[in-house]
């Protein structure tokens, strides 16, 4: 198809504002999917996505509308996946911005909307859910145009649920969004904006052809990583795979690579041909996404270690950002130290392991990557607090440049939060009389636990938050160890700023005292820096645990109770003879919540 008849677009929206429902209606209206085959929210193919109402992995669907080829490129909607979102947006010329007619603009919409503007996308504003009794379409339209400019009359008012005016959205996409302007004769270049893994066909890359043409069978190369392969099949999604002979400049589609390792192709990389006129310059914007948040994953039942290993191997095929290496913990046995893009990513991986692979896991509190100066003058990266030297002379921790957009009445609140989290103020600018853009430098360690939740709750959900890693900086850090029954529990060690060590240590042992059930003996719980104990609590011994009556008619019942009691113990981890329930290993996650009470 000639580029003049192609439109590439994304839909961006705050969670629950109706992105997936709109996508479903578009598929129906364009006869891409027959009504009878329509499953709700077809684009979100993983169960987890459908349940959480979020999109984790982007996908692209081609639809036909009035003689035009429209490519809908779906985007993930969370801060952990900012980079993936930005690549998806870069594959488009425009974006449909969906705003809920009752709720108006919300924080999360903005980060993605600004991202779209940064990528020079044409924005088609849409107000959704106009059929709701509480809807205020005019108010919502006004808000959108105040922010983005334009005429409120141009805002399309729809109900994705009932299908009202969805055709107008498609018309607006054709009319307002620019056609791609690639050079058909130039050396071939395509942006990889997503990839997935098919167990029979290997890695499948989703691409936007920018220049030139790609043909089935041609020899290809990923420019940043240097990976080479042949295009076994080219095609587009509609919504299942439809093979084609070639994909040309402006088009969106997939390449079946036959590669067996998903990490051989990275989102953001540029594909070109190996023969003939290969491109010299890759497309801009590629970043090597490195996991910055780490946590230990251990099977509750140590017999399940091989299953956990297999499951991680399989997840990794679909998720290049997931990192893992074997880890041995004295307290938790054999497991893996895993690296994630952020907390949501971690949560998703954990849930997929438990749900799709039926594993029962213990996840330790997450930490960031640290850089430690070795005696020989080399810097070593450490992913696990227990690997840290006790005396942390020279340690660096990752920092982020945080960008927070918030209504002006919350500026004080946000500053207060950032100060609590060791943030350094950078700048403040007014985006409009109502909205303020704050930038801060923050240690990543301070945001991995609950920063986002705190930011949202303290600003009643209005703050939008985005960040970029800005490198490593030296920090006054100490390692706090936890001893249960006199024995250090490696899985509970944490690295923390010296100033917070006492408070955190105290809160942690208090929390653990609540989580560890009373045993047959007193159990001291201590927090220590090196050999110096900074906090101590005791779980007092139980004094009685025996059923009084046991005669001839009671024996079977009693035996079964005992077996149940035994089973309950098996679920706990033995640390120096103390039964520690799995919840205790997450105690550190809830410390801040408690502090606020």
């Amino acid at each position, binding site marked *: 198809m000639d580029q003049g008849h192609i439109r590439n677009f994304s839909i961006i929206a705050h969670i629950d504002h109706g992105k997936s429902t709109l996508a479903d209606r578009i598929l129906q209206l364009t006869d891409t999917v027959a009504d009878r085959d329509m499953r709700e929210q077809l684009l979100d193919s993983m169960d987890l996505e459908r349940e959480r109402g979020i999109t984790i992995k982007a996908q692209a669907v081609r639809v036909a509308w009035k003689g035009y080829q429209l490519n809908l490129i779906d985007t993930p909607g969370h801060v952990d996946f900012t980079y993936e979102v930005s690549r998806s947006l870069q594959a488009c010329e425009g974006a449909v911005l969906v705003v809920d007619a009752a709720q108006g603009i919300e924080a999360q919409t903005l980060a993605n909307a600004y991202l779209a503007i940064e990528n020079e996308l044409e924005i088609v504003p849409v107000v959704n859910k106009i059929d709701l009794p509480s809807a205020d379409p005019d108010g919502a339209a006004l808000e959108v145009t105040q922010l983005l400019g334009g005429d409120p009359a141009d805002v399309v008012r729809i109900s994705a649920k009932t299908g009202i005016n969805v055709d107008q959205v498609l018309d607006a996409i054709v009319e307002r969004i620019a056609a791609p302007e690639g050079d058909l004769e130039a050396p071939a270049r395509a942006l990889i904006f997503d990839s997935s893994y098919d167990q029979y066909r290997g890695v499948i890359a989703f691409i936007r052809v920018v220049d030139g043409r790609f043909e089935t069978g041609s020899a290809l190369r990923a420019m940043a990583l240097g990976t080479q392969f042949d295009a076994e099949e080219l095609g587009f999604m509609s919504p299942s795979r439809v093979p084609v002979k070639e994909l040309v400049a402006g088009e969106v589609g997939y390449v079946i690579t036959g590669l067996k390792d998903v990490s051989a192709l990275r989102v953001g990389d540029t594909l070109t041909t190996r023969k003939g006129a290969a491109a010299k310059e890759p497309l801009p914007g590629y970043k090597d996404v490195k996991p910055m948040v780490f946590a230990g994953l251990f099977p509750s039942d140590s017999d399940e270690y091989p299953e956990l290993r297999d499951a991680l191997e399989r997840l990794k095929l679909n998720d290049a950002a997931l990192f893992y290496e074997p880890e041995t913990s004295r307290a938790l046995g054999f497991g893996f130290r895993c690296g994630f893009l952020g907390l949501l990513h971690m949560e998703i991986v954990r849930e997929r392991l438990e749900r799709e692979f039926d594993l029962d896991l213990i996840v330790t509190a997450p930490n960031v990557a640290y850089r430690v100066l070795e005696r020989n003058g080399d810097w070593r990266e450490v992913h696990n607090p227990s690997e840290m030297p006790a005396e942390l002379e020279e340690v660096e921790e990752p920092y982020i440049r945080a960008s927070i957009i918030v209504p002006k009445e919350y500026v004080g609140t946000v500053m207060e939060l950032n100060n609590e989290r060791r943030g350094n103020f950078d700048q403040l600018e007014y985006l409009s009389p109502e909205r303020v853009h704050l930038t801060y430098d923050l240690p990543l360690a301070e945001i991995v636990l609950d920063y986002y939740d705190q930011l949202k709750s303290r600003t009643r959900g209005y703050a939008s938050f985005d960040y970029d890693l800005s490198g490593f900086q030296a920090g006054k850090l100490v390692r706090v160890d936890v001893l249960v029954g006199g024995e250090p529990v490696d899985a509970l060690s944490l690295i923390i700023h010296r100033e917070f060590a006492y408070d955190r240590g105290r809160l942690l042992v208090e929390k653990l005292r609540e989580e560890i059930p009373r045993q*047959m003996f007193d159990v001291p719980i201590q927090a220590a820096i090196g050999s110096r104990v900074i906090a101590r609590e005791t779980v007092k011994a139980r*004094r*009685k645990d025996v059923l009084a*009556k*046991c005669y*001839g008619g009671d*024996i079977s019942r009693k035996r079964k109770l005992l077996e149940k009691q035994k089973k309950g113990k098996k679920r706990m981890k033995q640390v120096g003879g103390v039964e520690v329930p799995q919840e205790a290993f997450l105690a550190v996650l809830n410390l801040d919540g408690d502090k606020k009470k």
Partner: protein
Amino acid sequence: MSTDGTNVRHLYVHLPFCAHRCGYCDFVTVVGRSDHHGAYVDALLLELDRERGVLADPIATVFVGGGTPTFTEPEALRRLLGALPPAAEVTVEANPETVTPELAALLREGGVTRVSLGAQTFAPRLLEVLERVAGPDDVRRAVHTLRDASFDNISLDLVYGIPGQEPSDLAHDLAEALALAPEHLSLYELEAKPGTRFTHAWGDELVRQSEAMEGYFERVVETLTAAGYRWYETANFCLEGSAAGGRDFRAHHNLGYWQGHDYLGVGVGAVSTIGRGDGTAVRRRNLPAVFRYVAALSVGADPPREIEPLEVATLREERLMLGLRLDEPLPLRAVEEAIDGEALERLVERGLIERLRADGGEALRLTNRGRFLGDAVTADLLVA
């Protein structure tokens, strides 16, 4: 320990009738219905006849439990006692208010050697919580009546942990019980068993007070051992030494359960555990349905039953669980394979179990502190 199914030495007989069903009770009971007592006893004797082949001759103990055995219509009770095989220890459970001189005489004539009285508590307001009919005076009178009929082996049941029971109430109960100088005492913590009326009404209160009541068991043991009683089983105490005149006042019938001996139970809801001669055993439980029980036996059939086969390993586990309730050493050889060796070492180190030599072999015994935590210790000790 286990028999081959022909020389069982312990017989349990269940008489389910009661004047009133107490809220906390989860035994098989039938309220009133004195016109049915005769028919039930007929059926019970038929069952006993059918099972006589498994019993040794003579047997060691009989225990007549309930319900309220002494609420059973006197003629039926007399007939039953007369038909039971003779034994060195024949115990009958009794509620204090049912103990009259006539009943005492009936028991004596029936060969009863031991009476177990359900006193529960001496505090009237707590008796009310338990919905007990007898008052404190009924208990005292019952003991004297039994003494007058020359019963020299009387046991009192007491319950602690009753909602609203203060430490002073417990001390008072123990003092009152000791004043009656019973040969034997059973002390039960009130259990909120699921499904009982009592649990429905008091369950939350029991949870609330559970921590405060943790020390009650310790006080019971301290008080009774100081008064010269032997704490021979988790919940059971008996006179010993000179106070016992050299006699062994342990409940020998119940000792049979705890030592892992076979037993035959007859009557509704009664449980039997009988060896098969190959180290395994069968446990059967007569279903708690009085009319079906009577109907089946009257036409010459077995009463409806649940059957639970017990493998060697299961029996060993039970042997451990029951044997550790006693103050006498449990031979290690009998239970060794059920034990997690590492756990044993840990528990010995923590002073909850002691290893000792008895009868020429190694044996185990819980320490005093271990006995208060008996279930947790046993669960820890079992191989996973």
